[in-house]
């Protein structure tokens, strides 16, 4: 494996899961999320030389992922689906407790898909514990405004989830 490939593998392993969550939260679709993840890392591979000396490489990867998501929705005219198609419940033979947990994850993604596009992006980063200054840098929104936005989105998502559970 060349040095470039080794570096890319390290970057991919460290960031792919979080980027996948972002893409999944945005599209609500398993296949689309994988496509977007691939497109994002394709750009990373293409621009690896530029990244070599960057301290906050994850910020740049998030930035590419967000822009890729936005463009993807526009070009393909895809909308987040109400009915998700993930392989969230992977094993039917899993214990009931585990199944319940994964059902809750599915519900959570359904609720995220009801948010506006920028809200979906911001909240998935919040839940993956991306620091606020990094989210601000990725989204281009000042930290002060972002905190207000996040407060609102948290409230909105919690309400959506509880509403869903009551049904």
């Amino acid at each position: 494996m060349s040095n470039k490939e080794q570096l890319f593998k390290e970057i991919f392993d460290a960031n792919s899961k979080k980027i996948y969550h972002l893409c999944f939260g945005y599209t609500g679709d398993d296949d689309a999320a994988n496509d977007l993840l691939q497109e994002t890392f394709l750009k990373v591979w293409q621009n690896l030389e530029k990244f070599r000396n960057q301290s906050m490489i994850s910020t740049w990867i998030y930035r590419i992922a967000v822009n890729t998501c936005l463009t993807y929705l526009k070009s393909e005219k895809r909308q987040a689906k109400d009915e998700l198609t993930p392989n969230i419940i992977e094993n039917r033979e899993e214990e009931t407790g585990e199944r319940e947990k994964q059902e809750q994850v599915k519900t959570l993604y359904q609720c995220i898909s009801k948010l506006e596009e920028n809200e979906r992006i911001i909240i998935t980063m919040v839940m993956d514990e991306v620091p606020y200054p990094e989210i601000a840098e990725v989204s281009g929104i000042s930290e002060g405004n972002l905190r207000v936005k996040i407060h609102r989105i948290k409230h909105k998502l919690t309400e959506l989830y509880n509403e869903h559970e009551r049904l």
Partner: protein
Amino acid sequence: MKDFDSLIGIWNEQKTAPVIDHREVITHYKDSREKLSLKFMKEILLMIPALIMMIYLWFAISFNFWTSYLGLAIVAGCCIYFIVIQIINIKNVASSNTLFDKPQDHIQFIQKFRKSRQIQHTRNYKIYTLVLGFGLSLYFIEFFYQLNLVLMISMVVATLAWFIVCYFYLMKIYVRKEEKRFNEMLEDLERLNEQFKDEA
């Protein structure tokens, strides 16, 4: 009733994971580069036979009317314009990299790009059709003097009918469809642009 911290707890329990690995990305990159080169080749290969035909007609046939040469040059110019525009578009798409910009700047770039494509697909295409029609008409003038009356009238009627159908029917449907598609796209981009404004 759950609070946001409980939702984070649920989020952390998820087993969702990507199904691709880093090797697939590298393979896909190499494939897409090859596809782009093939697309370039296809555009160039389309241009070559058309141009060879024009050059052949120019030199092989000794036209009596200057209008034939002018018509031929206009038609050749249209072919070259069409192919060059295609190649420029492919190159622009491949080299444009606003993915590193802030989302709002990226959206604005996409908006501009879509608008220029809309102009290309509608206004420029109309002009292109008219110029091509004009070139062909000039080219046919000489034929009208050399062919018999029935054949000449048939050719005029057929050519006119073809242009009328293309310009007033097919073109209108095409332009309407393109405009609807682009307007929807621009509306969506406008909405996204608003969402990423730095206001709480």
